[in-house]
C-alpha cells in the first residue's frame, strides 16, 4: 500500500497545502450549514405551525428538494452570479462566498423539511398546553425549536454532512482554483483524475475523520443535554 503510506505521511506530516484545503472546506461547509439553519429552522417551524392555502404543495416541494442534484443547484447559482446574471453585480462567482451560497441552497431544504417534521410532531404534544397558556405565535416557534433542540442537532448534522460531502456544486461555482476555492472533495476528484492518489487518499481519510468526529461530538452533546434536561 505505497499510496496509503504516502497519504498517512501527508496527513501526519502537517502538509500546509493539505491543511489549507481542509480549512477552506470546513469554513465553507460549516458556514453553509449555519446559514441554511438560520433560515431553514424558522421556515420549517413556520410550516409546521401555520395553516394556509398551498401549504401542502410547499411541504411536498420542500421534501422533494431534499434530493436536489448538486450540479443543478451549482448551475442555477452559476447563472445567477455570472456577470450577465441578476446577481452578477456582486462579483462573487469563483469565490468561497459563492460556494457557501450554493451549498446553503443545497442544504436549506434538508434542514427546513426535517425541522418541519420534528416541530410538527412536537406541536401535537404541546398544542393543548401552549394554547391554554395563551402563548403567542412567535413564542411558540421559539419554544418548539428550543425543546426540539436535541432532535434538531441530528438535522444540522444531516445538513453539514450533505455540504461536506458535496462536490458538484462547489466545483461549478468555485472553479476549483488552487489555493483559493479548492476544497477536499474537489481536490480528491482532481487528484484522482491526475493519478496523484496519496493526496486524494489523505484528504479522503481526513474528510471521513471530520464527519465521524463531528457526529461523535454532536451525539455526546445530545446525550449530555438529554440527561440534564430530562
Amino acid at each position: 500500500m505505497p499510496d496509503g503510506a504516502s497519504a498517512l505521511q501527508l496527513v501526519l506530516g502537517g502538509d500546509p497545502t493539505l491543511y489549507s484545503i481542509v480549512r477552506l472546506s470546513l469554513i465553507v461547509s460549516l458556514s453553509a450549514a449555519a446559514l441554511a439553519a438560520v433560515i431553514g429552522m424558522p421556515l420549517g417551524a413556520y410550516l409546521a405551525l401555520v395553516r394556509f392555502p398551498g401549504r401542502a404543495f410547499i411541504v411536498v416541494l420542500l421534501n422533494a428538494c431534499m434530493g436536489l442534484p448538486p450540479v443543478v443547484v451549482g448551475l442555477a447559482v452559476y447563472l445567477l452570479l455570472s456577470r450577465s446574471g441578476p446577481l452578477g453585480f456582486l462579483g462573487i462567482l469563483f469565490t468561497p462566498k459563492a460556494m457557501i451560497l450554493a451549498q446553503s441552497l443545497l442544504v436549506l431544504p434538508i434542514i427546513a423539511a426535517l425541522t418541519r417534521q420534528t416541530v410538527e410532531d412536537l406541536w401535537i404534544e404541546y398544542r393543548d398546553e401552549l394554547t391554554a397558556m395563551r402563548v403567542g405565535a412567535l413564542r411558540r416557534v421559539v419554544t418548539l425549536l428550543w425543546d426540539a433542540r436535541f432532535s434538531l442537532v441530528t438535522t444540522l448534522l444531516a445538513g453539514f454532512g450533505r455540504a461536506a460531502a458535496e462536490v458538484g456544486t462547489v466545483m461549478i461555482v468555485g472553479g476549483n482554483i488552487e489555493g483559493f476555492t479548492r476544497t477536499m472533495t474537489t481536490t480528491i476528484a482532481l487528484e484522482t483524475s491526475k493519478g496523484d492518489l496519496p493526496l486524494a487518499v489523505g484528504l479522503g481519510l481526513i474528510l471521513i475523520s471530520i464527519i465521524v468526529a463531528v457526529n461523535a461530538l454532536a451525539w455526546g452533546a445530545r446525550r449530555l443535554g438529554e440527561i440534564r434536561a430530562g
Partner: protein
Amino acid sequence: MRAPSSDLPITLKDVSVVAGGASIVDRLTFEIAPGAPTILIGPNGAGKTTLIRLAMGLVAPSSGRIDWAGSEAPRGERLAMVFQRPVMLRRSAGANVAYALRDRGLDRRRRSERVSDLLRRVGLAGFERHPARRLSGGEQQRLALARALARDPEILFLDEPTASLDPASTKAVEDIVGGIAKSGIKVVMATHDLGQARRLGGEIVFLVHGRVVERAPAERFFRSPDKPESASFLRGDLII
C-alpha cells in the same frame, strides 16, 4: 400584581358540540361564576372535558354562544388549566414555572423568587434545577399546578388531575387544590372520583350525554339527589 381584566362570569347559552357526527355537548346552558369549587362529575363521554375546553376557549361550539364577562372571546390572561396528563417542557422544573411567568413583567430576581415560592407552595421546594420530565407523575401534576398558578389565575380548570395518581399523590394534589380554592381562585374540576368530589366540592354538576342532569351543593347532592339518574350514578349503576 393582579391584572385588571376578568373573564368571569363565563356563560354558555344553548351550546352544542358535534364531532364526527356524534353529539358531545347537547344544548348546554351553564354559568361559571366566582365562588366555591365547581366539580363536574359524570360517566365517560358525559362531556366534562369538552365543557372545560369550551370554557377555556380551546374548543369552539358547533352552535350556541359562550361569553366571558360579556365578551365573545376570552381575554385569557387569568384563565389557567391543568390537564390529566400535563406536558412538561424539556427543561428544569424551575424553568417550566418561569416560562409561565415570562409575561408577568417581573425582573430576573423577582421571577426567580416567585418560582421558588410557587414550587414551595406545591411541595416541590428545592426542585428548581431538577429536569421536569424526570419527576414522578404526582410531582409533575404538582408542577403543572405551580405553572398554572404562575399565571395568577382568577379561575383554574382541572381536568381529572388525579386520574392516574396513587392515593398519596392524590391527597397532595387535593390539599393544594383546596388551598387554591380557599385563596379565592375559582376552581372548576372534572373528576371520576366521587369521594374526591365530596371532599372538594362546593357544588356538583352531574353531566350525562353532554347535558346537565343536576346541579346542586355537594352536601345536598350526595345526601339526597333530586334526579333518579343522579341517585343511580351515586349507587354505582352504569349510566348508558
